[in-house]
């Protein structure tokens, strides 16, 4: 009766979990696995790491160093890509005619430009401008636009373009963007939102297609924030599938080696798969989604939870199913609980993605243990024959002092390695980012080659309205200008250079002369110059119109590079407005800091990186300590024997120490994920300690198999490209093998006991 109830209950549970999991989407959003910043400065840093959703710029590098691409071929490629209609912007050089906001910026030129004064509209200054106009017209430069000259004789628009797009934009050396190795560059912006990865992927695919479809196909590499997002998504998906499949395969192979019969293998898979399913369902219910990284990590559970059915199936060889189940239930649950506690360490605050991993592991392990303890005996009607015999007695073969000595040594050396600083702490933020290292490096190299420096210093200004923050930015920009003159900073780039505050725009509009005044001045200035009558009528009309213009707001601009640059520097944060002023090299940060007013803060992204990393490492170590204490408590309560508890703890400690030593030996930098993984090692070591009992060759065999399957699963994880998964995989694989060895050594020190009980 009871058996049937159990089976039905289990089936019901499986059905519920399937119903929850199957419709779930697998997400690959990077944001879940990036740390949350504790301070606003750190929040900013994390945003930089994400390369900002506002950054939709794609960088396409064309050609290779041996065969530089000709201007004609590049232009043909550019035109073909433009024809696909998938892009807002396709530029091979800074061409002002490609600026989507060109018309608006031209119309607003007198409100946006900071370099004119009312004098510039009086006759003497106009005369100087007009003389230059005549000169340029006489020279008959092919690139001269007469309409532009006539409407903007002072060259205000050209000045603005120069400030926004750099010297290259205004025609002097506009050869196009080239890297140092001669490869050409195209800047593109797809007609798709930054988060719309499907359309971004389609756009990137179109670029590659066009490059290959030319008469002489061009080599092309696409980089930039959207490309990284798409690439990371693909990698995460691939990793999830690959790791899961390999782990499953490995698990099945181990089971086949251990159990030999298909029925046994299937039975063994029942708790394992139940655990996985329950874990996935819990994540879906708790977080609403299932992340690809979580799924990949969850596959390792297969290796960990394999222990439980193995222990049970081997114990039940005598045919006394329920008796065996009862005997093993307690140690199994103790082991499972302590392992689960180890995995719970993953729920470190500030890493929402890791919390998903913790929930999945916890649920999975507990479920697998429960199913192995109660449901499996109900299902296994006939006994299973393992291949190793149970040995009743054996002599101790290891000296009593050896295993504690080894464990002690490992712990001491491990601690020493940690304390002495032989083990580097990871300071590279890339260790925390789920972006595969190769993608991040390539992007960084391209940006440097293009002269887009990694931002390090910036000034952060906060106010409650947009107008207030712009006004404050203008004030700060004035200070920064003075500092630039004396060399304290190399250059600065405030958003108000593109978008002045409303107040400033209005002041400028009012300072412009009215039509009558200007027309009179123009007439006087034009006297005796070989220009047609009415040549500058459009200019007068434009200036007059500028006086009536509504101040420019970002919403009035079309989507494009200008709008994007504004949104990178002007943001909304929880009801406040934030303006970021990027700085070039800062020679004297102290002087700079003291010169800034109270509402502006100097942020050093490099320093913030260090602070963030340190914070998380300390937190991880705290979790480790707490988790270790909790596990020790469970053990003592479960075993009732202090001696045994200590022995098991020494095994775990040896495993941790050994892992630390190996990490130091291979020169790996320790990141917060490594620390978290160490508690995982503790949890798994417990399992071996609990089950590896003296003389029990069967148990030794099963412990070996468990260690092998765990180590295998985590070794597969160690081959992942995603840094977080790799860190955990490497640490745990090392730790478990050492712990296993120690467990067997400890077991070998004692005389076998005939009862085969835990105590």
């Amino acid at each position: 009766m009871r058996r049937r109830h159990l089976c039905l209950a289990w089936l019901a549970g499986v059905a519920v979990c399937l119903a929850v999991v199957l419709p779930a989407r697998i997400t690959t959003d990077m944001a879940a696995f990036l740390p949350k910043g504790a301070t606003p400065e750190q929040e900013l840093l994390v945003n930089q790491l994400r390369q900002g959703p506002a950054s939709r710029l794609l960088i396409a590098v064309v050609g290779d160093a041996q065969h530089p691409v000709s201007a004609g071929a590049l232009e043909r490629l550019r035109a073909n890509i433009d024809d696909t209609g998938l892009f807002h912007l396709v530029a091979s050089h800074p061409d002002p005619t490609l600026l989507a906001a060109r018309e608006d910026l031209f119309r607003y030129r007198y409100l946006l430009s900071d370099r004119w004064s009312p004098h510039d509209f009086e006759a003497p200054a106009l005369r100087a401008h007009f003389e230059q106009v005549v000169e340029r017209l006489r020279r008959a430069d092919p690139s001269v636009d007469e309409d532009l000259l006539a409407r903007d004789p002072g060259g205000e628009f050209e000045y603005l373009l120069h400030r926004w797009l750099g010297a290259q934009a205004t025609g002097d050396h506009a050869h196009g963007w080239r890297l140092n190795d001669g490869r050409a560059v195209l800047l593109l912006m797809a007609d798709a939102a930054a988060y719309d990865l499907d359309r971004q992927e389609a756009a990137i695919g179109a670029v590659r297609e066009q490059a290959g479809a030319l008469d002489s196909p061009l080599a092309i590499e696409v980089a930039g924030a959207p490309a990284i997002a798409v690439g990371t998504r693909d990698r995460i998906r691939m990793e999830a599938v690959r790791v899961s499949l390999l782990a499953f395969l490995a698990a099945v192979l181990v089971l086949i080696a251990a159990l030999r019969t298909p029925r046994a293998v299937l039975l063994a898979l029942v708790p394992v798969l139940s655990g996985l399913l329950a874990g996935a369902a819990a994540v879906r219910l708790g977080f609403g989604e299932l992340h690809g990284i979580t799924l990949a990590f969850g596959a390792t559970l297969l290796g960990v939870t394999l222990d439980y059915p193995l222990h049970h199936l081997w114990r039940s060889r005598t045919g006394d199913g329920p008796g065996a189940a009862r005997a093993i239930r307690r140690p199994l649950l103790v082991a499972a609980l302590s392992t689960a506690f180890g995995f719970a360490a993953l729920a470190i605050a500030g890493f929402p993605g890791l919390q998903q991993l913790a929930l999945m592991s916890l649920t999975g392990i507990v479920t697998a243990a429960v199913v192995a303890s109660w449901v499996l005996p109900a299902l296994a009607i006939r006994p299973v024959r393992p291949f190793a015999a149970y040995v009743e007695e054996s002599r101790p073969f290891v000296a009593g002092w050896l295993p504690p000595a080894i464990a002690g040594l490992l712990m001491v050396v491990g601690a020493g390695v940690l304390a002495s600083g032989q083990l580097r702490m990871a300071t590279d933020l890339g260790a925390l980012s789920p972006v595969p290292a190769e993608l991040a490096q390539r992007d960084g190299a391209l940006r440097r080659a293009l002269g887009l420096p990694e931002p390090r210093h910036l000034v952060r200004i906060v106010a409650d309205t947009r107008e207030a923050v712009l006004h404050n930015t203008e004030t700060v920009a004035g200070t920064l200008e003075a500092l630039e003159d004396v060399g304290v900073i190399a250059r600065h780039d405030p958003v108000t250079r593109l978008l002045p505050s409303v107040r400033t725009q209005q002041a400028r509009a009012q300072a412009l002369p009215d039509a009558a005044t200007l027309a009179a001045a123009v007439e006087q200035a034009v006297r005796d110059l070989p220009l047609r009558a009415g040549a500058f009528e459009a200019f007068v009309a434009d200036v007059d119109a500028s006086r009536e213009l509504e101040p420019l707001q970002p919403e009035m601009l079309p989507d494009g590079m200008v709008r994007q640059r504004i949104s990178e520097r002007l943001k909304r944060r929880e009801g406040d407005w934030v303006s970021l002023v990027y700085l070039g090299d800062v020679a004297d940060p102290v002087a700079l800091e003291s010169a800034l007013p109270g509402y502006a803060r100097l942020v050093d992204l490099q320093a913030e990186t260090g602070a963030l990393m340190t914070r998380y490492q300390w937190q991880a170590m705290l979790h480790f300590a707490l988790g270790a204490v909790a596990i020790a408590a469970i053990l003592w309560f479960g075993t009732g024997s202090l001696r045994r508890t200590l022995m098991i703890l020494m095994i775990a400690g040896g495993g941790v120490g050994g892992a630390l030593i190996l990490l130091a030996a291979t020169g790996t930098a320790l990141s917060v994920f490594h620390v978290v993984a160490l508690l995982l090692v503790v949890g798994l070591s417990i399992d071996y300690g609990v089950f590896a009992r003296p003389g029990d060759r069967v148990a030794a065999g099963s412990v070996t198999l468990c260690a092998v399957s765990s180590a295998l699963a985590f070794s597969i994880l160690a081959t992942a490209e995603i840094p977080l998964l790799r860190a955990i995989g490497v640490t745990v694989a090392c730790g478990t093998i050492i712990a296993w060895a120690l467990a067997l050594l400890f077991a070998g020190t004692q005389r076998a006991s005939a009862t085969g009980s835990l105590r």
Partner: protein
Amino acid sequence: MNILPGVGCGELRYRLSLIMLVLLVPALSQAGTLTLDDLLARLAPPDGEFRSDYLRTRESGLLDEAVTVEGRIEYRSPRHLREMRVHANEPQTLIIDDDTVRIERADDSRSFPLARAPELQALMRLLEAVATADANALQEHFFVQVSGSEEAWRLALESRMLVHGSGGGRDGKPVVLRVSGERGRVREIVMEAPGRGSVTIELTGNGR
């Protein structure tokens, strides 16, 4: 023998001549009409190269007087142009190579993409089509109209691609080239581009 009663012999001959003329004129004019292929075949230089001295007059929308300079132009297929002139006692060389324009003066030199100067781009396309006698290429880039006879022909080209002003203005206008000449020789090229006034190049001296 009198066929038509009421009409004298002399009158008849006169009327017959008229009828013959009326019938013949279309045939005659047909013989004189030029097709684009014909014209290009005549104009094409043997080795894809030509050179000539010229007189260049630029009419600007702003300057009250046209500016006239002398110069020399050399074209070599494919897509290589060299133009030398003297502006206000300052010699200046303009070189167009494939897609890049380079202007060299005594005090400075600049280069920029050909796409920045649409009238030069149109001129290069015309010259390349003439140098290779490729009517298709010409029609790919322009709306073409040939008129006149072999003795005095005109070629009117309107670019298919529109040019927008660099400052404001949404409406684009085409670049217009008007070429005229006699037999196998080009006499004059007039280029009109929006925002760039109009330039008349009168080819003098040797070469086609």
